[in-house]
């Protein structure tokens, strides 16, 4: 064991230390971001496909991200119907969004951004299955 005065931290130790910090930070970001996107395995809906032939998409499940625009209607049994603006291809395309009654506790307002998992229902509306703020 050398004397106390000779003990100095090695520069290699510092480099290893900062490399470890960067690695841990990167791993954390990767892990938590991946974990923070619950719909990452669900296909993203292309508005032009919907516009082209919405009936052909019936029964399919997609993820979609956009902004609540206007309230289009409401029914106690079926829920709330909104126009939902999806940013795509340099512009916003409105899509019909049906929010079923089980989400009635969520305060939906114009201008809110949401990421949704939707199913194209029998009426070719995008029916919300899961929703989270974007």
């Amino acid at each position, binding site marked *: 064991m050398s*004397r106390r005065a000779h003990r100095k931290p090695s520069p290699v130790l510092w480099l290893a230390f900062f490399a470890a910090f960067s690695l841990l930070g990167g791993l954390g970001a990767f892990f938590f971001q991946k974990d923070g996107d619950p719909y990452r395995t669900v296909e993203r809906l292309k508005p032009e496909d919907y516009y082209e032939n919405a009936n052909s998409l019936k029964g399919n499940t997609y993820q979609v991200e956009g902004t609540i625009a206007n*309230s289009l209607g409401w029914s106690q049994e079926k829920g709330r119907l909104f126009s939902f603006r999806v940013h795509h291809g340099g512009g916003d395309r409105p899509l019909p969004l049906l929010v079923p009654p089980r989400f009635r506790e969520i305060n939906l307002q114009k201008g809110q951004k949401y990421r949704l998992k939707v199913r194209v229902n029998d009426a070719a509306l995008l029916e919300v299955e899961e929703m989270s703020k974007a």
Partner: protein
Amino acid sequence: MGFSGRIGDFFIVAFPADVRILWNVLSLDSLELSLPAAERPLLSDINLHLPGGHFGAIVGPSGCGKSTLLKTIAGILPHTAGTIRWGGRNLDEKDLAPHELGYVPQFTCAQPRLTVRENLSYAARLRRSGSAADIAELVEQIETETGLTDLHDRRAGVLSGGQLRRLGLAMELTTSPSLFLADEVTSGLDPKSEEEITLLLQGLARQPGRLVLLVTHSLRFLEQYDSITVLTGGRLAFCSRPADLCAYFGATSPEEIYPLLARRDPASWGEEWISSPEELGFEAEAVVEELAAEMTLPEAGVSAELPSLVSQATTWFGRRLKLFFRDPAQAALQLALLLVFPAVVTLFAWNGLPNVKNMTMSPATNAFQQLKDALEFTSQSAKISTLVSGLAMFQVILLALMGSNNAAREVVGDRAILEKEKLAGLRPAAALLGMTGFLSLLVLVQSGWMTLFVRAVGQFPGDLLAQFLPFALVTAAVTSLCLGISSWTSSSEQASLGSLYLVGFQLPLSGAILALPEFLGWMVRPWISAYWAWSGYLQTLRDTRFYDLVRAVTETPLAGSEISAWMLTLHLFLGLICAFFGIRRSDWR
């Protein structure tokens, strides 16, 4: 009396039915200490052999290397050539154990706000294991030995110079060291106090196997020493009995020696001493002859075991807490920050957060009305989002400031005492644990009160514990980063400035006020604690309209609460690891 003699580094005393090796011999062989930038070595060609049970003085004019030699023997300064042996052991291969060495520096190691007994008690508890009763008994014994009994309940800050030096010596005696080094402990004392300290040291040197070396500028009371070592310009000019001193230099009194030394080159004094006839030089064997009758090996049963890491950390924590409450200015400042900072935040929302008026969602509304709604909403959004985001960031920055105030001086403020205590066996990890314990209390109180008070006055929605977490983590992270800064800087001013810069850059680089260019944001944000705390806090408002408004206005992406907590925890550990290495490094000045 039988035979005594020296074989290599060992002194051997042979009695008719017993042969003893006196292990405690200090041997310096061709010792040299050079600095890269210095013209000449600070120490050169020093050869000394001093046995235990011996009281030696190291004297010489200012700048001759007396204190440097003492620090080199203690292992504080690294010698560049030669060897130092203690009891035949090369100290480059195995250093002195903390309990073997007593080193009393020029500065006081006592905490001025603690009493004499408290200082001694904490010194003992940091250096040796034992029950509370054992430690108390030891402390009383040392007080008696050093004449401090009547002063035991007096605070160190009000002691006289002589009493303070006595306390410094007493603190070193808590481990019964065999090598006792005292640096200028008689400087600046009146003649009576100087004589008392010299006699005290002389008495300590009469302990079996203990070598006491005192560096002094004073040439008074030379007859009290067993040997006098004279240094000049880093060279050994003399080392022998006090009686030989004046004769060797051709002086009529010791006071004439320093002017005589100045007349010649130090190297010529060194060469003259080396070439002196042997009988003039100090022969340690002669001292052995004198002392052998009263010297024995140190008893093997005496426990020299260091306390455990946890025990040292607990002792450090207890002492830090006591010092905090004994310092009214520090406690008052902390209390003022604790009360004023949250109050300042609530000035901006003393009546609670405003209601959010939503836009009409009916498509039947005419275009003019929709446009008017949108305009009002945009104006309201800008105001409310600025308020909510600003209040979140304001709390974060004020907590970061409190964190900086907590730790900026924690290490550097008492660095000299820390170094001394490390030399005496305090583990860096124990000091860090003790500091962490104390600072954790501050962090919990500060972040807890900020969260509760602002939330209650501003009527913030969201989960209380979820809001407390990013605030506690950011306070802890900045505190630990400032602790790291404190452990790597050389003055309190530098540490305070560094910590203020750390906090000052948090606001502009967080992106909460102005969004950074995308590439720069990705580069910078991982290092900005305030960004993660701000994001983490705003995520707790996710289910409210306030979150929507902030999202609508701010261009800086908000991180999720999990990644925010993760990054702040990383910052916390980054600071702690920096602080550990900073505390561990040697920083004697």
